[in-house]
């Protein structure tokens, strides 16, 4: 059985600088995969390559067997891959509700996610619906960014550093939405620097270093030492 999302031999460059060196990764339907790794490991580049924002120089990205790596970003969204980008990237000229609505810009037909369902998932957003998106607290902005991505009813949701800069209680609140998202039929890839959070939420963890996946496994099978070595490089340990 082939995976929902199958990435193999993926490389990406910024000009002459190579940021990804043949990354292999698979996401099964219904799963949550976490990617951990230190600053500059290439996690964001991988997310940007999957969504078509960064140019893929070699390798393949198959979604349900269809090649994504040479498609433009809007086509990849339409195919079913949505992203919560690093730093949230809400549109400052749009209200909270407009930010959510624009997530459905290219959507055809109906799906699980509606404004009503999002407001049930994150009730605070209903109260703040007419505020500018960027006037909210960091955690609330993150909820808007997640909601905006969900409005396209994605098959695969990519989340880049949801917990960055947020208090632990807020992080818990945001991750509490994950079961509902999974039940809606969406499989998830999270990028996390918070290793504990990553191990808690994921069925499968990949650790990246310097543009490569250096360790993969189920959370239960990975020892603290192995993760530490993969995260910082063996010689640091």
């Amino acid at each position: 059985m082939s995976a929902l999302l199958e990435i193999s031999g993926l490389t990406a460059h910024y000009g002459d600088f190579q940021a990804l060196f043949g990354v292999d990764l698979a996401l099964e339907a219904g799963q949550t995969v976490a990617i951990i790794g230190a600053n500059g490991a290439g996690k964001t580049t991988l997310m940007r390559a999957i969504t078509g924002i960064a140019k893929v120089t070699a390798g393949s990205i198959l979604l349900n067997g269809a090649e994504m790596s040479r498609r433009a970003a809007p086509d990849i969204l339409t195919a079913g891959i949505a992203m919560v980008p690093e730093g949230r990237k809400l549109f400052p000229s749009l209200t909270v509700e407009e930010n959510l609505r624009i997530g459905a810009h290219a959507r055809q037909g109906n799906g699980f996610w509606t404004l009503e369902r999002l407001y049930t998932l994150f009730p605070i957003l209903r109260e703040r619906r007419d505020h500018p998106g960027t006037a909210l607290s960091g955690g609330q902005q993150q909820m808007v960014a997640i909601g905006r991505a969900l409005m396209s009813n994605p098959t695969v949701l990519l989340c880049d550093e949801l917990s960055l800069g947020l208090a632990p209680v807020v992080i818990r609140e945001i991750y509490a939405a994950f079961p509902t998202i999974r039940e809606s039929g969406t499989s998830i890839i999270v990028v996390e620097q918070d290793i504990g959070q990553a191990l808690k939420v994921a069925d499968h963890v990949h650790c990246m270093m310097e543009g490569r996946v250096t360790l993969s496994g189920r959370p239960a099978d990975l020892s603290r030492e192995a993760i530490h070595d993969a995260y910082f490089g063996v010689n640091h340990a």
Partner: protein
Amino acid sequence: MIWLDTLIQGILLGGLYALFAAGLSLVFGIMRLVNLAHGDLIVLGAYLILGLGTATGLHPFLAAALALPLMFALGWALQSALLNRVLGDDILPPLLVTFGLSVVIQNALLMGFSADSRKLPIGPIEAQSLPLGPVTVGAMPLITFGSAIVVILGLNWLFYHTALGRAFRATSDDPVTAQLMGIRPRRIFAVATGIAMVVATIAALYLGARANFDPAIGPARLLYAFEAVIIGGLGSLWGTLAGGLVIGVAQAMGAAINPEWQILAGHLAFVAVLLVRPRGLFPRAND
């Protein structure tokens, strides 16, 4: 009473300048592009209305209605085929290309229509006027001003109450993240320039109905439009209307003192506003 009359004539003239400027403001607001050919495209629109009117025998108002979709298509094609290629981090290429386009349009009009000045034959309505309180105003200036208000209201509605307007604002904020929403910035830009050309056509109708035009008057219209946009604050449509009014009133006041001062007074008002408010009257918060 003469001053009140002058003020009102100036405000009505300002409506025309706001129409010149609205398309420029829209395009700048969405893609940070200054189209140096905007004035010439308005003049092109005036010739198109004239040509369609002559060919079909229709009144200029109806000929303008025919010209609207053609000018939308022209704007769409211009953006898709040319301007999208030069948009980028460097602001110089779009300036050079639109400057070149300005020269091309002027020369093409010169070849096609000669340097003779023309006017749109709008008939008896041109001479009609109506009393407005203590002063008398011309029907055409009033219609022009009314059209400017309707255009600005319409553009604002489009911008803030439609899905297209939402996509305009999102793309203007962040074109990369907009693509993650399934928005194609180049298509959005093509539609925006098409709409700007629709507004330019409305401006062309009143330009050609009010006074003579010839192939060379585009750059001066661009200058008024540009000043109106800057006075208003970049990217604000109501600001653009206010900017048009400031220039219109200043020109009317200048002309009342000495007819030779009309144009100069408009430019002086522009400089004066910028000295007091360098970012214009209604600057956007996040620029």
